[in-house]
């Protein structure tokens, strides 16, 4: 039928646009992680490189944030699963007339904006601290503790929903049977209910971990003087950008994909197990296993392809050295710049193994970093030696032996810095940083 072909074309087109919107930004971001360009971008493509992963690995602030995030996520998993489980178990036992009230209260954290949860947690524990005359290094003012509490407020509700849906399939007669056979209440809980809930505990824990790990709105208030991955990321993304953030995104996307593959494989296996249970002839089912695992499952096939492609990229990256390419690109750029002068699309630089300098806040917020062409392009060319050094170099000017080492954060922000290498003057750095932040 004509109209139906039209319709399926339309649906196909819509799906393509929709998933383009869904994946386009992520794919582009991931690509920037492999471009040697100083600023995260895809075009012009300079050189394929994995150096941003090195930069990422050596970023202490990020590592500290990551460690804290993992600690917090661990705490949140334990607390939220415990609370969510209790919340779900109690739901059926609340006096029926009070049940809607109970449900409203415990479900409300999901609907309350994250910032409000963060603020209320912060203030509440601050007040408690004042009440007990606690010192500032006590638990009441500890960013990690407060973040665990603040995040668990709503993550517990997520977990509770997971448990409720699992408990709806629980046969209460099993508990009674256990009691009847002489088990104590605790034994019944441990031997009957808990094993039944294991899968839900697993999913609740994963959910809690992910939700905690990526939370920003609540965390930014409760974390006080500590940092988490998200708060570090936020300040990086807001103030100074370089593609090492993209490389972090690549890692996270990869982990998510692997997780999705694992989940799908597991689900598939469960399904096969059920099918096998129904078909008593288990040997034939086993023979079909691999085939069944893939057949009729485009999701799996696609994910496998993505996974293989990812592995291929890593292998390629480990074999390939971008240095020659970078030199070429740099020369080209020099030529181009000499001919045309500064151009807003000119890439910002060529130095490579340089660690990211601490971000310098810029007041302009938006595009300060993209609108300044005056990056010390020549600095690196003149002093290739600094490619290796300068981890701790800050724009304070201390790292003056190689102007290039300190200029990353500063010069990127400052259009005033001369293209012709006044970054070599240590004093200039401070000045240019100042200009940058006044904009």
């Amino acid at each position: 039928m004509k109209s139906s072909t039209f319709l399926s074309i339309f649906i196909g087109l819509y799906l393509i646009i929709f998933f383009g919107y869904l994946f386009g930004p992520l794919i582009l971001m991931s690509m920037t992680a492999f471009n040697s360009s100083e600023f995260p971008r895809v075009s012009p493509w300079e050189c394929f490189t994995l150096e941003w992963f090195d930069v990422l690995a050596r970023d202490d602030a990020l590592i500290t944030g990551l460690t804290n995030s993992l600690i917090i996520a661990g705490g949140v998993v334990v607390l939220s699963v415990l609370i969510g489980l209790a919340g779900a178990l109690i739901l059926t036992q609340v006096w029926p007339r009070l049940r809607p009230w109970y449900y409203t209260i415990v479900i409300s954290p999901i609907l309350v904006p994250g910032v409000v949860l963060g603020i209320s947690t912060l203030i509440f524990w601050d007040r408690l601290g004042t009440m007990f005359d606690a010192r500032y290094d006590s638990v009441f003012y500890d960013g990690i503790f407060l973040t665990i509490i603040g995040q668990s407020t709503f993550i517990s509700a997520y977990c509770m929903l997971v448990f409720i849906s699992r408990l709806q399939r629980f046969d209460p007669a099993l508990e009674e049977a256990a009691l009847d056979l002489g088990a104590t209440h605790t034994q019944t809980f441990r031997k009957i209910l808990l094993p039944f809930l294991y899968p839900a505990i697993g999913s609740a824990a994963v959910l809690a971990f992910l939700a905690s790990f990526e939370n920003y709105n609540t965390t930014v208030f409760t974390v006080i003087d500590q940092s988490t991955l998200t708060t570090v990321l936020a300040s990086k993304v807001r103030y100074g950008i370089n593609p090492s953030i993209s490389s972090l995104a690549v890692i996270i996307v990869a982990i998510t994909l692997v997780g999705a593959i694992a989940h799908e494989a597991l689900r598939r296996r469960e399904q096969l197990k059920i099918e096998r249970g129904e078909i008593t002839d288990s040997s034939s089912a086993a023979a079909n296993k691999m085939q069944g695992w893939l057949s009729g499952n485009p999701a799996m096939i696609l994910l496998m392809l993505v996974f293989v492609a990812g592995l291929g990229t890593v292998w390629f990256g480990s074999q390939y050295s971008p240095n020659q390419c970078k030199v070429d690109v740099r020369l080209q750029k020099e030529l181009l710049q000499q001919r045309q002068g500064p151009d807003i699309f000119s890439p910002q630089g060529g130095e490579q193994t340089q660690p990211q300098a601490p971000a310098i806040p810029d007041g302009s917020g938006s595009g300060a970093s993209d609108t300044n062409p005056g990056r010390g392009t020549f600095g690196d060319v003149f002093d290739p030696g600094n490619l290796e050094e300068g981890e701790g170099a800050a724009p304070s000017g201390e790292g003056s032996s190689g102007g290039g080492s300190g200029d990353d954060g500063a010069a990127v922000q400052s259009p005033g810095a001369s293209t012709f290498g006044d970054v070599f003057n240590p004093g200039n750095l401070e000045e240019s940083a100042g200009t940058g932040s006044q904009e």
Partner: protein
Amino acid sequence: MNPVTVLRKFFDRHGLFVGGYLLAAVTFWMLMMIILPQLTMLDFSFRDNLPPSKVGGPEDVYTMANYTFLVFGSPGNPEPFNVVDLSVFGRTILAAVFVTVFDFMICYPIAYFLAQVARGGVARLVVLSLVVPFWVNELLRAFAFKILFGASGVINTFIVTIGLVDQPVDFIKADIALYAGLGYAYILLMIFPIYNAIESLDKNQIEAARDLGSPWWRIHWRIVMPFAKPGITSGCTMVFMLSAGALAAPQILGGPSSLWFTQLIYQWFNTGGNWPRGSAYAIVLLASCIIFVLLMMRLFKVKLGEIGR
């Protein structure tokens, strides 16, 4: 039944150990994590910003100052109202509504496709493709949009290269990047509730309507949408709340001149150092969200339980 017998029955039912754990966990959650913090924040919002030494002293009295500030500005304000903050508030709410509508429009077809058209492997592929971006960090998603929409971003490079414009367009200043990023962030939360609702719709109803000669748009308007109303309400509520309460995306994608209301709160807490005022603003945000939820519940006649799902 009095509380003592209720409690005794509870422990009879669970035993001392499990019962104790259940009661302790839920009490701690409800009191120490939900109710008391919110009440403390409410209380705090009615106080002056005092140094710690004066807290509890004679100057520590209740005041409406933090709220009047939001409405009228500081006493020396020449304008009759606090135009800056109020307009930020209004714009946040409007933009959140806009993001919600935008998300609904792009998500409804997908949800319908997923629930009624797609089968087996395709459906799983679509679901997975929806979930994967959702677990990428919110900040990184915003970052991706910054790359996309930045002055030297992909879109600008493209449209300049093909000669559509001569100068890069400032998508960030125009808030386009922000809306696209916010809309993107909550796609999943819009799709799943609608999907769940539509999935339980009997296909025969649609076929019957089609059989009776109803055009496709009427089928959706008269059959699918009314049926999926709880899911739609749930999705819209979630997206609105999260957009209005978003902080990361506005911080990263917002233009320099257009603040989000959460950013005002953030400023009072961080740079402003005025916690009570920040609390008052947070209360205003919370109250508007509650009002929105109640409005949705009233308007579409759904229960809270259906939204929370």
